[in-house]
């Protein structure tokens, strides 16, 4: 479980996040939604340590990520997987080498065990016949799958996805959404998905946080969003603009 307490983030004299408080539970598709520039990517980057918040706590279990020493922080990060908006696959490595990379760096597995694990991850994301290809040779949807496979290669506890559907056609987007939910449930991972795709929200959003101008504006589930729109003008505008 991840708990955020009183999180603030400033860029110079501009405040981006205002007193964010929330909790993300394991085995649930947690969605952070909001318009571009609302601060949702900054929130995720703060949570994985790519940005340093100015105030507040980010608790992974009972460990405050922000106050951890560098070495402990690096150890905790090995329990984190992340799917980047632009996939961030290593372009000099093949698909299987990309997935093998975290295993080679951090596991004590033999080459045979690693190969087995790579194939298992590829199977999980339903990607076959692409092992020897380079990222430049595969489609956007395949790249997302490789990104997910690499993220789950180590037995992670936390999965962060920054706009997993960006640049994908609606059909592939739904497949990736389903894949993320399946993996979250199967491995009981705390998954946080950053999205502005309303279709995704209505399909998989079990726990949704709506960020508006850097503030947590609304929190609830996909079944409550229709009701919430009636009383929440900003959420309603965002919802309507998404279609």
């Amino acid at each position, binding site marked *: 479980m991840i708990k955020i307490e009183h999180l603030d983030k400033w860029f110079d004299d501009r405040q981006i996040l205002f007193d964010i408080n929330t909790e993300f539970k394991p085995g649930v598709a947690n969605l952070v939604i909001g318009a571009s520039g609302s601060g949702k990517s900054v929130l995720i980057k703060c949570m*994985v*340590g*790519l940005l340093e918040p100015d105030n507040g706590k980010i608790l992974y279990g009972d460990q405050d990520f922000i106050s951890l020493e560098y070495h402990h*922080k*690096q*150890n*905790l*990060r*090995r329990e*984190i*997987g*992340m799917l*980047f*908006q*632009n*996939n*961030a*696959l*290593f*372009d000099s490595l093949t698909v299987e080498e990309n997935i093998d990379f*975290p295993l*080679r*760096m*951090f596991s004590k597995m033999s080459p045979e065990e690693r190969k087995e694990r790579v194939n298992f991850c590829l199977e999980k994301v339903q990607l076959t016949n692409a092992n020897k290809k380079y990222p430049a040779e595969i489609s956007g949807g395949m790249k997302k799958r490789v990104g997910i496979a690499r993220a789950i290669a180590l037995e992670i506890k936390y999965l*962060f996805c920054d706009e997993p559907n960006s640049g994908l056609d609606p059909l592939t987007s739904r497949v990736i959404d389903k894949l993320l939910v399946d993996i979250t449930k199967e491995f009981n991972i705390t998954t946080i998905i950053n999205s502005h795709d309303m279709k995704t929200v209505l399909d998989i959003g079990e726990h949704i946080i709506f960020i508006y101008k850097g503030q947590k504006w609304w929190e609830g589930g996909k079944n409550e969003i229709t009701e919430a729109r009636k009383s929440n003008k900003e959420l309603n505008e965002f919802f309507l603009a998404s279609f």
Partner: protein
Amino acid sequence: MNLISEIGRFVIFMKFVLHRPEKARVFWKITFREMYLIGIDSLLIVILIATFTGAVTTIQTANQLLSPSDLYPTQLMPKFVIGAVVGTSSLLELAPTVTCLVLAGKIGANIASEIGNMKVSEQIDAYEVMGINSASFVALPKIVAGLIMIPCLIIIANFLLLYGGVLACSATTSLTADNLIEGARLVFKPLYLKVMLTKSFIFAFLITSLSAFQGYYTTGGALEVGIAGTKAVTKICIFILFFDLIIAQLFLKS
């Protein structure tokens, strides 16, 4: 003020770079690949530049010292002096400085744009999220490879500069290869070798670390990656010339 903050950022960057590698086997595998890219891939350009520069330096020095002049009787000028001038300037300046200025353009731009591209495509962030010290992972193998290979290239360049001179001698009647080699040997001092090696290690560090630093802090897109490459080469050239002067002052001040 900007320069001070830039130096501060470079020091912090180096603090992260000079860390024990996460996995020695992976580190050496990458380092050997970098040694190939920095060393073997630069060999052709070093061979061409050193040989031609050696030949041109010999011809020009011979022309200046042996052409009829009103200032001194050129027929009394011993021919080995040309070898002495070419040999000494090869060791002290042409091999380390000129070679490194060329390598700054080739290796420096390459490292800066490679790391810059990794930065803008979030690959550096991916390393960080995995718990890998990204600065050390991407920069240290390049620095180590540079420190091993660039001095080797400079030693090769030094021999080729003399070889270029010998080739030029065979095309002229006023100077023989023996005159050139004799002159180079007569004035050789171990101190010159020390200066050359000192320069080569310092310049190798400057080329690899400054370009990695410039690439690592790239933000934006493809345009900024190109700018990072250009900035890296400019900074490396300035620092090479600056340290060239300092080393000369320290070792050769008479």
